[in-house]
């Protein structure tokens, strides 16, 4: 009798219900981690915001909210997010069409390349656009070359335009991957049918493709809006003090005004906005999956008419100008010195501290970044791996809860996380004040959702009959995990590790709150260098940004080689 029960349990395999106790055991670490480093800090923010003096004081909240400065900040946040999203869609939709429906040489490489900006650290992107849109930019040399010395010097630093363009740069891939992914699945004969029935090219798009793409477009819109709404590094560096979003204002209130209640109320506002858009996004996503799709083998066609070729060329030019140019100019600026091109700035990074504004030699920032990122990756893999396993083995409701709960930090802004750490973890019960441990913890918190998102589909896709087969061949549950699950999940684990590392090494929003002066990371060092005048500081910032870009790109290229999951697809 006991035998039968045992066989049944083993045959069901670890992916089947393993019993609430096992699931609960798996969840201990993730729940503790999230509770301590997410729920507790966020709760502290809420309490600080609502009870600045220890008692509930909605009047104070209202006072903050009715402050014209706060209102202006809130308005600007919404405004820039809306315009950025519209701009990104306007540029990205044609790009999505080109990359999903037109066939041309190098398309697959290009499709991988356009996702690079999306995963670059915000600080690198901001540096790149400072370089591209500044007076020293090759763009201006070009203008001068064409129009002579009288040509106006283009300087878009500290403008809204710079922010909008940088946001389009960042999120172009989101539109291309999300909308393009669906577009590639739409039967191209639907538009053909419309054309034959008398619809013009535009009518065929509007009447047939657009309605069918609507869920993906809505989904991309929501996610781009969320990203630009919570954008921090780009706005902080490119926008200048006059153009603060809620994120930037939280940072300013904390570091310059030392007004924690103000920062808390702002963070509260931010949280509400983020949760609202996440709910909307979740709704939209559910509709996306319900969309009936017609898979088709030949969705893409080569450009045949002159108009099509022109459209293709225009889009390729846009991708080159929007996506490639900033990064190339960044590298160019990092090599440019008063005496022509050279490695001066790079050498300066590895020399003494004398001519830098950091309290430690800059190369230490590189070492710190890599150390912290490795630590963060380990933490994220443990927490995310356990949570994903629990989500797969647990009952439906448990699984959905784990899945959902772990996504919240993804949407919550990094600044909220960093600020929460700052005000919550500096006193008992969790006193980590000034501890360098805060940095990898914050980074891990932000990387964990990506780990879960990468592992879950792979874990779910393992055919449970493989486990059953292993069980009938005599494997214990532990052996099944080692012999079946692990080899299959191994690749996904590597991808998750690469992802976590890339995110952690470039993390800025949370790190800038918790990194002490003696433990700068690369993004923090770049930010500090950019904040000081002088060509040497700027050049070193460019050099460090280039290094960070290379480190991140390497991690991501390694992921790409493994070809698991879709970067930037929502």
């Amino acid at each position: 009798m006991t035998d039968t029960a045992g066989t049944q349990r083993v045959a069901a395999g670890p992916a089947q219900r393993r019993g609430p106790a096992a699931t609960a055991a798996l969840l201990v670490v993730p729940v503790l981690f999230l509770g301590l480093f997410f729920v507790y800090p966020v709760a502290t923010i809420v309490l600080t915001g609502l009870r600045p003096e220890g008692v509930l004081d909605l009047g104070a909240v209202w006072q903050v909210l009715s402050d014209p400065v706060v209102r202006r900040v809130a308005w600007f946040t919404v405004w820039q997010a809306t315009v950025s999203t519209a701009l990104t869609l306007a540029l990205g939709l044609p790009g999505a069409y080109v990359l999903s429906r037109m066939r041309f040489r190098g398309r697959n490489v290009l499709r991988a390349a356009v996702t690079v900006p999306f995963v670059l650290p915000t600080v690198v992107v901001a540096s790149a656009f400072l370089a591209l849109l500044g007076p020293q930019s090759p763009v201006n040399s070009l203008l001068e070359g064409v129009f002579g010395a009288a040509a106006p010097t283009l300087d878009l630093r500290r403008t809204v335009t710079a922010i909008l363009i940088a946001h389009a740069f960042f999120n172009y891939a989101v539109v291309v991957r999300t909308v393009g992914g669906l577009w590639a699945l739409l039967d191209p004969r639907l538009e053909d049918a419309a054309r034959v029935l008398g619809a013009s090219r535009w009518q065929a798009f509007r009447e047939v493709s657009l309605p069918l793409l609507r869920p993906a477009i809505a989904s991309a819109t929501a996610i781009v809006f969320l990203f630009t709404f919570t954008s921090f590094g780009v706005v902080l560096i490119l926008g200048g003090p006059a153009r603060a979003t809620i994120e930037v204002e939280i940072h300013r209130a904390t570091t310059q005004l030392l007004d924690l209640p103000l920062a808390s109320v702002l963070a509260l506002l931010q949280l509400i906005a983020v949760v609202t858009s996440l709910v909307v996004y979740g709704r939209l996503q559910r509709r996306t999956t319900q969309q009936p799709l017609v898979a088709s083998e030949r969705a893409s066609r080569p450009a045949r008419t002159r108009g099509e070729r022109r459209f293709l060329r225009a889009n390729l030019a846009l991708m080159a100008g929007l996506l490639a140019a900033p990064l190339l100019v960044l590298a160019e600026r990092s090599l440019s010195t008063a005496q022509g091109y050279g490695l001066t700035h790079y050498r300066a990074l590895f020399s003494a501290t004398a001519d830098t504004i950091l309290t430690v030699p800059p190369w230490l920032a590189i070492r710190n970044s890599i150390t912290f990122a490795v630590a963060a990756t380990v933490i994220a893999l443990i927490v995310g791996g356990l949570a994903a396993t629990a989500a797969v083995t647990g009952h439906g409701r448990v699984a959905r809860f784990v899945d959902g709960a772990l996504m919240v930090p993804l949407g919550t802004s990094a600044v909220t996380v960093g600020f929460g750490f700052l005000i919550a973890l500096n006193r008992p019960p969790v006193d980590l004040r000034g501890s360098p441990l805060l940095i990898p913890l914050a980074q891990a918190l932000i990387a964990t959702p990506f780990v879960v998102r990468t592992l879950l589909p792979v874990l779910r896709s393992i055919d449970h009959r493989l486990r059953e087969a292993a069980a009938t061949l005599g494997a214990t549950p532990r052996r099944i995990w080692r012999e079946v699950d692990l080899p299959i999940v191994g690749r996904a684990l590597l991808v998750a590790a690469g992802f976590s590392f890339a995110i952690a090494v470039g993390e800025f929003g949370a790190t800038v709150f918790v990194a002490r002066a003696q433990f700068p990371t690369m993004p923090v060092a770049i930010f500090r260098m950019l904040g000081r005048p002088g060509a040497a500081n700027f050049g070193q910032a460019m050099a460090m940004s280039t290094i960070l870009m290379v480190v991140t790109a390497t991690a991501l290229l390694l992921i790409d080689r493994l070809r698991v999951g879709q970067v930037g697809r929502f």
Partner: protein
Amino acid sequence: MLDVRGLTVRYGDLVAVDDLDLTADDGEVLCILGPSGCGKSTLLRAIAGLVLPDTGTVSLDDDVLDGLRPDQRRVGLMFQDHALFPHRTVADNVGFGPRMRGNPRAEIAERVREALTLVDLTGTEDRPVTALSGGEQQRVALARAIAARPRLLMLDEPLGSLDRALRDRLLTELPELLRQLGTTVLYVTHDQDEALALADRVAVMRQGRLEQVDTPDGLWRGPANAFVARFLGLEHLFAVEIADGVAATPLGEVPVDAPDGPAHLVLLLDALRLADEVRPRRADEIELDGEVVGRRFAGDHLRVRVRTRCGPELTVPVWRGRAPAIGEPITLALDPRATRLLPPDETEDETEDGPQEESQAASASGQSPHPQ
């Protein structure tokens, strides 16, 4: 009248349609029959304007269509797997064409009703097309093409995705429906039964070219070459040498009226029969002795496989009541008048399709292979 001249469509190095000429008369149902990948769908797409031809001219009722966009051509195309708009109702799908042409609302509704009546789907107007069965979807697709009032209706494997029973039913309904419409119809299929059941004329297509255009009966009686013969399912095809008006086949000598040289001889469907006491061999027939090696049940008759004493295995239809057992000796009668001489095989390889062989094919197919 549809007139296609010198049409060539290339996809990179691949020539999908190769210098093709084709005409279809008003009200004619012309089937384009060919194996998958022979370029028949591309031909339709080129006529519809969805693919730009590299060379050639398409005209319809004396209007030259070249350079016109698909929406300016007023030709209808019913797609393989139908390509119905999944986000629209039946009525919206059917009314799409009239709406794009800017018809008033009442006119659109009228045409939708008309087209749905024709395909026997009245009452389904408000249903989403995704909720329909395969056969219903097929009818909606046809109604959608009809409601646009095309000058030419093209159907691309319209029955391809349907199960057999449904296909057979629609195959009996479609000819009547197409006749009612009176539009010129171009019907693409890889299924010879479909082509022969529907078509006024059949154009057999292979690797971008038309091998033969003829009535169904003409095709059966005189396939132009080995490819057409094989594609129609004529399995008895022999490489022969002609000398002094006689083709030496493995089955015996068949008198032909053709110059000396290599050729192919095909046995038409009614060339072989069982010779027995009810219908003994006639004097002009060739006697073939053999042994039954296999039997396949085919509804009202059996297809009996016979290994002849002279070598080749032949299949012959035998009525059920007279079916011989396996191993039984059997005598067949071969009617030499039901054989056709075909030009030497181009070995199925398109690269050898030279102009020389083409002219040979033309002259050989025009000849009578036997004395009248």
